[in-house]
């Protein structure tokens, strides 16, 4: 009991945010429920981003009824690689990544071969709502498969590494690089076994990593060091993340971005309830940073001022950046 109290105090001193705190003080406070469909539905997010001129992976097609499954060929026949996703999926579930073809089969990112019937069954499952948040009917979207920048080859196992940035009222407060592992099956979700690596907000250089709530410095599959890697086009990532506030209107979000070798930084999806493992990856609590942003916002409100995305990025980079590796 006493030990727990001690841990409690230590966590609080370091500004570690718990789920209850995140829900009560940030998610419920800054995220208006009416705006959730905008981020929960990836098709809506994509349409809005395109309208605002923000870079997202190309949309090949949307399937919303069983009948439309027969139109799958029209979307994928000319393409080797593509991704099938549930529009309202949660936690990366139900996503199928096809890298190329073999005969009349499709090769997934993990190397297994699927027939056309398998793809259609997957889409059918998506439509019935198997992967959607509330279990209700969903739509499937087929989109461009991101080809990860070669920089990640050494520290990633299959799949596409992505960058998660927590954004509070348009201020990016913490960033993390998520690296798929053999265990995560090519997916970049931490609870599935992917590695989270903290990223310095100012420079874009990676810090230590977290894997299954433990602190690590090497990728378990490639054994390359995950820290000290300079992410290319970091300014582009930060600008994209900061602009997401205007895009969706939600005050506290996790922005998932990828770096495509041809198209540069792209927004993959937005998350209205971003996870908390990013704190372990950065070896830093979220609460101190979010509180600092809230104080800054209160100051601005007093002066009747507001900042644009560029100024917001500069503010957080000056305050939270340049962390020693």
């Amino acid at each position, binding site marked *: 009991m006493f030990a727990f109290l*001690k*841990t409690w105090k230590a*966590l609080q001193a370091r500004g570690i945010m*718990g789920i209850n*705190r995140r829900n*009560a003080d940030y998610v419920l406070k800054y995220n208006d429920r009416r705006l959730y469909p905008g981020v929960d539905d990836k098709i809506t997010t994509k349409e809005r981003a395109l309208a605002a001129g923000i870079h997202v992976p190309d949309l090949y097609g949307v399937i919303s009824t069983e009948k439309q499954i027969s139109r799958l060929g029209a979307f994928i026949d000319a393409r080797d690689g593509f991704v099938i996703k549930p529009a309202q999926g949660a936690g990366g579930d139900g996503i199928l990544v096809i890298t190329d073809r073999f005969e009349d089969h499709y090769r997934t990112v993990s190397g297994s071969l699927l027939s056309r019937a398998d793809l259609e*069954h997957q889409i059918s499952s998506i439509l019935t709502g198997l992967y959607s948040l509330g279990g209700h009917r969903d739509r499937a979207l087929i989109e461009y498969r991101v080809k990860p920048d070669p920089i990640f080859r050494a520290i990633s196992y299959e799949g596409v590494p992505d960058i998660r940035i927590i954004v509070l009222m348009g201020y990016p407060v913490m960033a993390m690089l998520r690296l798929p592992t053999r265990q995560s099956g090519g997916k970049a979700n931490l609870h*599935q076994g992917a590695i989270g690596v903290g990223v310095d907000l100012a420079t874009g250089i990676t810090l230590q990593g977290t894997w299954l709530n433990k602190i690590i410095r090497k990728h378990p599959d490639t054994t390359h060091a995950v820290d000290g890697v300079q992410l290319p086009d970091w300014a582009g990532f930060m600008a994209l993340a900061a602009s997401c506030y205007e895009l969706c209107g939600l005050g506290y979000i996790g922005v998932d971005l990828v770096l495509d070798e041809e198209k540069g930084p792209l927004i993959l999806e937005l998350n209205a309830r971003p996870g908390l493992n990013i*704190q372990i990856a950065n070896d830093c609590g979220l609460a101190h940073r979010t509180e600092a942003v809230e104080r800054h916002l209160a100051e601005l409100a007093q002066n009747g001022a507001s900042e644009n995305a560029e100024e917001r990025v500069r503010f957080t980079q000056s305050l939270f950046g340049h962390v020693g590796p």
Partner: protein
Amino acid sequence: MRSLNLHLKILIAVLVLLGAGITGYQIFVLGIPVSEDETDDLWNIDAKVAFIATPNVPVKVQMYVPPLAHDFVSLNESFISNNYGVNVNRIDGNRKVTWSARRASGNQTLYYRLVLTKRYSQDKPKVKGPVFRDSVPLDGPEKVAADALLAPIRQHSADVETFIGETIKRVNNLNDDNVKLLLGGDSSPVHKARVIDLLLSVAHVPLERVHTLRLVANMPQVPELWLRSFNGNDWLYFNPETGEQGLPADRLIWWTGDDNLVAVEGGKKVLVSFTLNNSEMNAIRLAKLTDENTDADFLEYSLYSLPLQTQQTFMIMVMIPIGVWVILILRNLIGLQTLGTFTPVLIALAFRETQLGYGIALFSLITALGLSLRSYLEHLKLQMLPRLSVVLTFVVVMIATISLLSHKLGLERGLSVALFPMVILTMTIERLSITWEERGGGYAMKVAAGTLLAASLAHILMSVPQMIYFVFTFPAVLLILVGFMLAMGRYRGYRLSELIRFKAFTQDNEAGA
């Protein structure tokens, strides 16, 4: 945010105060017992009248029955007699039942049955009685003996009470020659009472015989004779043999006066025997039963005024918030992971049918079998709804098989699964299998174990009888519970699981320091 917090605090305070206030009012003002263990004795008295009827003459049996003045409440009274007319009437504070028949022959048995309990109320009604009477004329040696006895009694007494007490003491001193003379060799209580009456009448002190029954179970009894006298305010009761004063609480006054208990015309060899037994009854139910006789208005607007069948449903229903509260604590304070939010509560309700250990075994067995079926169906690439239907049907068949097998093996418990909610099981299987595929077997097991743990805890808490009674009787405690839930709605602290999850931080700290 601050005004919202204040709003919430006021709301919580109002709810808790309201809940505590109503519950306090029920307990302290209405006097509703706090636990079900508070029971009252319920007495079942059978008086059996047996006699031999004389053929060809009308039969008339008259027997005193308790007047039930104010100390006891009659819950049920019945006169069991074949072919006899029954008539009850009140005479001078006594009640008398008259059984009559045109003709009867042979052995006759009549029953009088009374179910009664002590009355709650403390206030005593005003009683009236005589304070003076004329003395019985005496002469000869009896007068001399009486005077000789009364002189020292007068000497040793101060008022009516002590006078009677002293008289009884003297009369019970059988070595006294005067007493011997008055008793005339018969020292039965009845005779003693007669002598006491005689002595007191000389002193103009009124006296009445009281015939009582002792409320004690399974003991053959005959009415016990007591004497009573009115002192202007109250009746004073005396035991004619010991001089003991005051009627013990377990005595029921059957009748007063000098007459015999039973009188038969047209019959002989009458014999009355009493059988008493008692049962305990919940004080609330008792109050409800005696509704007409007592002031049980407080039950008018409680759940107890519902029909019994509905009451039983509500007894389960009022416990659901308690189960939900357990889940709330387990999930938000401890951080236990469960399948779905309220699935554990539903499983806990299902455990009601099967009991805990058997329920867990059954749940695990059916879920395990269902999971293997589900993984087989996965290969067939079925759509969700048909697949769920197949699993559900399989669950039903499995439950039927288990019931049949356990019945053949003589395990009656197996039959209780009939109402084990199949839909809950099906959904559990479906969700568990999805979790298994996506998060791995280890995680699925963890979640399943968490669900079972939460369900078991909720079940255990939801089936504590004292708790069910308390919540059912004082539903206002649910308001307090809502207050707690509201407070939990803005709980910002860590979950117990997070203290373990983020342990990396503290270890790092210590290493650095």
